[in-house]
């Protein structure tokens, strides 16, 4: 303390003081001083990815699995622009990241210098906040502030752009005490009067439902425990968004499964028919609500969220409670008990739910030679569940089938790109999660198209001896695109066939991985077992039925009650208004 250090040394010292253990990155001209400082220490481990987008997804996977802030280090220009997709992904899914980007020296900014880009301009709207640090003395305070902003309130990515001369100049660095910000003050504690009103509404409801989301995961493992208690005392059914899976165990009797476009029939019907909806850390996303004017018409709605801008954005609610969802649930439970509320009689409500459940909307029938993708994921779940695996996914049909057929029992085990829907997310995210939990079974459930978007990361996993498993649901199509073309575009499969696929086994072997093919139902279990038995990284090329569709489905522009349960229910082609929706 007190002595002067270079900017690069300050970056490394501040990261160390902040408890950072792993940085995901890729070197380049404008970050060489920081890489030099990293070389001369051994407290922070640097993971060299093969593409900067993967560095950000890996940091996301690390953050989601561990609950810590993910850290990324990339160079200026293409290093920064390659990171943009990952940064946007983290913003949409509220994942805490700090992304350090190199920049050309301050005197060259604005001259179109080599590998210069306006990083703060480009990332202004895809980050929670960003900085261009022009003085070395400010680096330490900015880094500490950036971590505080990234992990507090509604978490998100924070970008720090550091010109090369700022990395080389010297300044004093002192570890700051408790960080507070003069304008940014997230509200953690919910308003007590609103919480009391919410509890009374809940206690008086005949057909309540808890609609839970990623906010519960972000709040920390305690929030998932509190949700279990809240479910117990209220006796209410619980449904979850894609982002919130694992907060309540999949086999919990009150759990109705995921809701939304590919959610369960009972979850969507219960959302539609409830008289009281308690939304906990979810945001009424268009994938969840379906047609807005038909969304849960008869219910009163309570919305708990840490971000005020989530309130009334798409759905008008009756009561808002701004605060951390864990803190609010804790207060709700206290008030519930203090007022001596009892679990209400919901016999009729649960009777209705049992009727919807009996439709078995996630059901499928495996017959014949071609393996159904649902069956593949169901067996993968059954055979691996004892190991409490961490699952990442890419984006598409396989992602929805994984959400439907893989059971999640704990938070932080399910890593998927929900908001942005980024193909190529799953492999780097699995690498990040494996680094956070080296002993865990980490599986990327992938599609044959998505996996090719960041396939180069096979090299990263090999370099760091990470035993990641990739389970490719290979139907030779960009399946979700093909499904929409079938439903909305007359079955004209424009550019959605995965032609010229690589031999995934040879590809795996070229990188030093093990490759396994599953040809059909007969060798499914053997293939999964071989994958689990191999101590190193494995690619499984699981060949499935080519034209299977992901059901149930709420067609675009339709209401919860208009769910298609199976191919037999398929409606005619969508009208133009519906076709215009995504």
């Amino acid at each position, binding site marked *: 303390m007190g002595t002067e250090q270079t900017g690069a040394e300050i970056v490394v010292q501040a990261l160390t003081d902040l408890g950072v253990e792993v940085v995901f990155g890729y070197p380049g001209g404008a970050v060489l001083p920081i890489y030099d400082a990293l070389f001369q220490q051994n407290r922070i481990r640097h993971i060299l990815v093969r593409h900067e987008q993967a560095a950000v997804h890996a940091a996301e996977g690390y953050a989601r699995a561990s609950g810590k802030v993910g850290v990324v280090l990339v160079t200026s220009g293409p290093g920064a622009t390659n990171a943009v997709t990952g940064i946007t992904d983290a913003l949409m899914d509220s994942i805490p990241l700090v992304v350090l980007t190199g920049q050309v020296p301050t005197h060259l900014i604005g001259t179109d210098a080599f590998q210069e880009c306006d990083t*703060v*301009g480009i990332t*202004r*709207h895809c980050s*929670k*906040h960003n900085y*261009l640090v022009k003085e070395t003395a400010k680096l330490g305070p900015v880094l500490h502030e950036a971590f505080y*902003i990234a992990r507090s*309130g*509604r978490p998100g990515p924070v970008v720090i752009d550091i010109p090369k001369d700022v990395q080389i100049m010297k300044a004093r660095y002192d570890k700051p005490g408790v960080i507070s*910000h*003069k*304008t*940014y003050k997230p509200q953690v504690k919910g308003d007590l009067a609103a919480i009391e009103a919410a509890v009374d509404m809940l206690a008086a409801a005949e057909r309540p439902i808890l609609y839970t989301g990623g906010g519960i995961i972000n709040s920390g493992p305690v929030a998932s425990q509190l949700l279990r208690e809240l479910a117990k005392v209220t006796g209410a059914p619980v449904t979850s968004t894609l982002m919130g899976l694992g907060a309540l165990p999949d086999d919990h009797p009150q759990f109705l499964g995921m809701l939304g476009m590919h959610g369960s029939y009972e979850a969507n019907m219960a959302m539609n028919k409830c008289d009281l909806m308690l939304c906990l850390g979810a945001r009424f996303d268009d994938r969840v609500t379906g047609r807005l004017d038909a969304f849960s018409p008869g219910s009163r709605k309570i919305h708990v969220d840490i*971000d*005020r*801008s989530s*309130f*009334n*954005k*798409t759905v*008008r609610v009756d009561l808002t409670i701004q605060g951390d969802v864990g803190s609010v649930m804790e207060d709700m439970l206290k008030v519930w008990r203090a007022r001596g509320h009892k679990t209400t009689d919901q016999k009729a409500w649960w009777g209705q739910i049992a009727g919807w459940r009996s439709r078995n909307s996630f059901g499928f029938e495996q017959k014949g030679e071609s393996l159904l993708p649902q069956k593949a994921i169901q067996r993968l779940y059954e055979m691996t569940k004892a190991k409490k695996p961490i699952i990442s996914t890419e984006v598409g049909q396989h992602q929805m089938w994984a959400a439907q057929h893989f059971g999640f029992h704990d938070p932080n085990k399910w890593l998927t790109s929900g908001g942005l829907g980024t193909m190529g997310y799953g492999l780097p995210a699995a690498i990040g999660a494996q680094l956070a939990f080296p002993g865990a079974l980490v599986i990327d459930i992938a599609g044959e198209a998505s996996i090719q978007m960041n396939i180069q990361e096979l090299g990263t996993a090999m370099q760091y001896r990470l035993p990641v498993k990739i389970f490719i649901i290979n139907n030779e199509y960009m399946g979700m695109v093909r499904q929409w073309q079938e439903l909305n575009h007359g079955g004209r499969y424009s550019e959605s066939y995965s032609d010229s696929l690589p031999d995934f086994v040879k590809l795996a072997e070229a990188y030093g991985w093990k490759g396994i093919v599953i040809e059909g139902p007969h060798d499914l279990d053997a293939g999964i077992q071989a994958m689990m038995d191999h101590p190193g990284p494995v690619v499984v090329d699981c060949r499935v039925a080519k034209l299977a569709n992901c059901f149930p489905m709420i067609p675009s522009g339709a209401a919860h009650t208009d769910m298609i349960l199976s191919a037999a229910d398929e409606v005619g082609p969508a009208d133009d208004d519906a076709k215009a929706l995504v």
Partner: protein
Amino acid sequence: MKHLPSERHTLSILVDNEAGVLARIVGLFSARGYNIESLTVADVSDDHAVSRITVVTNGPPPVIDQIMAQLDRLVPVHRVVDLTDWGPHVEREMALVKVAGAGEKRVEALRLADIFRARPVDTSINSFVFEVSGSSEKVNQFITLMREVGLVEVARTGVVAIARGAEAV
């Protein structure tokens, strides 16, 4: 929600006086499809640390609420106040209005300017530049009248606004 009738709201936003803050505010409006009728910004503190941005926007009430919430969560924003909801406040705008002409039109221009308490701040043998300030309606009306007597061009500041009474917002 977007089908409700649109309302005009004047927002006062106190922000850190730092590079990029204006871009954050303006970018938020364009990215989310909100309207900007006018926008003014200037440093308003002794130590040059805080700027006040005044935005006049329009939209249905739920959209105005969203705009407020979105602005409020930007890290460098100290405070956002919807002056239209807040209550009594003063809104003023200033314009520089150039007119050219001779003879009776020139005399009429000067006469109208006098009625509007607009001051000539530049004069040539065949032109005036008038400084006019007041509500946007008054400025609009003055400009409309000047069209009849040789309007050449207009520069306007956009609205600045402040709450009435002794309290700061």
